[in-house]
């Protein structure tokens, strides 16, 4: 994640006018330049044109014309572009299946958030910035789902409650400093917990926040019990 504070060029795809204007305003408050489209076809059209100059696409999942999951399919098409365009998918629901498809083989520059998160503007804007910078963001709700799915996992059950919390925050893409603030503990304590979590789960320790998110997601998704397709 590069701490780039400059304005981003955001392409927003959202069919509901109210949500679209709310998101536009939030992004403009942060100084970003926003262009918007209101259906899946227009988004795909822009992508087909190469999406030149777009720093990040923020898209709804369900949009016309079929009102199923065009936003998600567009997001995956964006991931396949060379170079891939960062994309933050917003959804009215957390669907583990959608998230699994979106995050499969991702190496950053991708995010999956509940739309509700716009109520926390600062967090939302941080997520946009993180994805645009090549990071990975997943909704905390998705993490709880994945963790619950692995409730019987022996390695996970060896984590202490505090380590569980740390794991959740790591998976949410938080930096060590942000985790320390959130849990009101010192930075060394956070580092100790993270080391302990990664050792217990047998994951490669170290690396940046993004690498850690991907490691945790890969761990939770592997033999997660859900269908892959």
């Amino acid at each position, binding site marked *: 994640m590069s701490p780039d504070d400059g304005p981003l060029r955001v392409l927003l795809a959202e069919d509901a006018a109210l949500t679209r204007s709310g998101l536009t305003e939030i992004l403009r408050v942060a100084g970003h330049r926003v262009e918007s489209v209101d259906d899946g076809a227009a988004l795909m059209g822009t992508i087909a044109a190469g999406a030149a100059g777009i720093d990040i696409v923020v898209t709804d999942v369900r949009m016309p014309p079929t009102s199923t999951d065009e936003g998600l399919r567009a997001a995956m098409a964006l991931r396949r572009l060379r170079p891939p365009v960062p994309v933050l998918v917003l959804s009215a629901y957390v*669907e583990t299946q959608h998230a699994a498809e979106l995050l499969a083989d991702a190496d950053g520059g991708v995010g999956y958030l509940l739309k509700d998160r716009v109520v926390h503007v600062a967090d939302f804007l941080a997520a946009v910035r993180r994805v645009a910078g090549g990071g990975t963001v997943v909704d905390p709700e998705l993490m709880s789902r994945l963790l619950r799915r692995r409730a019987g996992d022996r390695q996970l059950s060896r984590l202490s409650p505090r380590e569980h919390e740390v794991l959740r925050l790591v998976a949410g893409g938080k930096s060590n400093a942000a985790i320390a603030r959130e849990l009101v503990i010192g930075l060394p304590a956070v580092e100790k917990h993270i080391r302990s979590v990664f050792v217990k789960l047998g994951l490669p320790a170290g690396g940046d926040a993004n690498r850690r998110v991907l490691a945790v997601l890969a761990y939770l998704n592997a033999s997660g019990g859900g269908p892959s397709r």
Partner: protein
Amino acid sequence: MSSGSVWSALARPHRWVASKWPWRSLAYLLSGVLIGVGLLPLLAAGVLLGVLTAPLGVGVGLLLGVALVGVPMGALERSRLRLMGGDRVPDPHLPAAAAGVRAWLRVRLREQATWRELGHVFLNVVPLLLLDVLLVGNLVTGSVVLLLAPLLVSPGERLPFFEVTISTTGQVWLAVAVGVVFTLAAGYLLTGYAAARVALARLLLGPRDRELDRSLARLVDSRARLARAFDAERRRIERDLHDGAQQHLLGLAATIGLARHQAAHLPGSAPLSQRLDLAAAQVTDSLRMLRETVRDIFPSVLSDRGLPAALAAVADRSPLPVTVDLDLPHRLPSPVEATAYFAVCELLNNAAEHSGACRAQISGAFADGQLRVEVGDDGVGGAALPDPASDAVRGTGLVGIADRLAVHDGRILVSSPAGGPTHIALEIPCQEMRS
């Protein structure tokens, strides 16, 4: 035999005497005679006028009316049959496909039942009316004359109707004694005759097996249509909530988010920020509750991704750890997917709430032309479909599932011994949607 009671009365003459059947039979035959006597001239006039005026066109209508007279008369006769006990005779007619006289005529003139009823009318007003009048008239008159002989004749006079001369008082009383026997015999004969008339009417006026099959097929069709309409309605409500209330709440969440963001930069805005934090929590709760409601109505992942994905999502949300092993390479018809989905949701819910289970599993596959999904848990067992004969409330959830499966000719198999474990299989015959 549906009119068994009158026949069984006839089989035991000593019981028959004191039963209601002689009187009911008489009432049945007499009311039939009255109707026949009223109808005969009308029908005769209708046919005659119809034939005479047929060249003018008016007659065609008249003849058509005569042809259809069996329909109301059939209804009247079926209600008259209730006098003679037995099961109600159902209406054999199909409902008209559309409103209006033309549609009604088209259906009536094409169905066999209409012509059977017309046949019954003509049997009733010509040969059988004659037989009715002869039998009832002679037997009743004979009985009355013999029983009332002391009032009608003195010794030396001729007994009316029988035209025999009564010469002594002893013979008058002998006539009464003969009258008692005659009346009993006449009553027995009339009851038998009425029972035979009823059997004939039932044969001609009731629906044939084929017609019953057809009405059953109509019921099955309408049930399937209702189920489909219900399914479509669920999707519509889900869409309306998603496009309406949910979007408005998200707009509100964005507005509150912006307000908090701006308030955070104002000096001395702590009380305002607190209030806005509360508003943020409230709108988040509203969105969460609405999301759960909408998902219970119809989960969009089911229509987007099919049964395995939707059930995996259900498993993720379940308070129990649930493993999902569902091997469906192709999509299934959406009503089948929806039925299986909601059934599994209910079963998992039961497992989580009532069974005391620690874990549950969902498995399933498509094989031999049917979808089979199994839901098992390690709880206390005791789940059962109630005996259809009892009206037990326990297990109504399973009955609801069985009913919804039955719409698709599917079924539910329950194995849940006391002490557990519970194993429930759902089977729905269907076709894979190969695209």
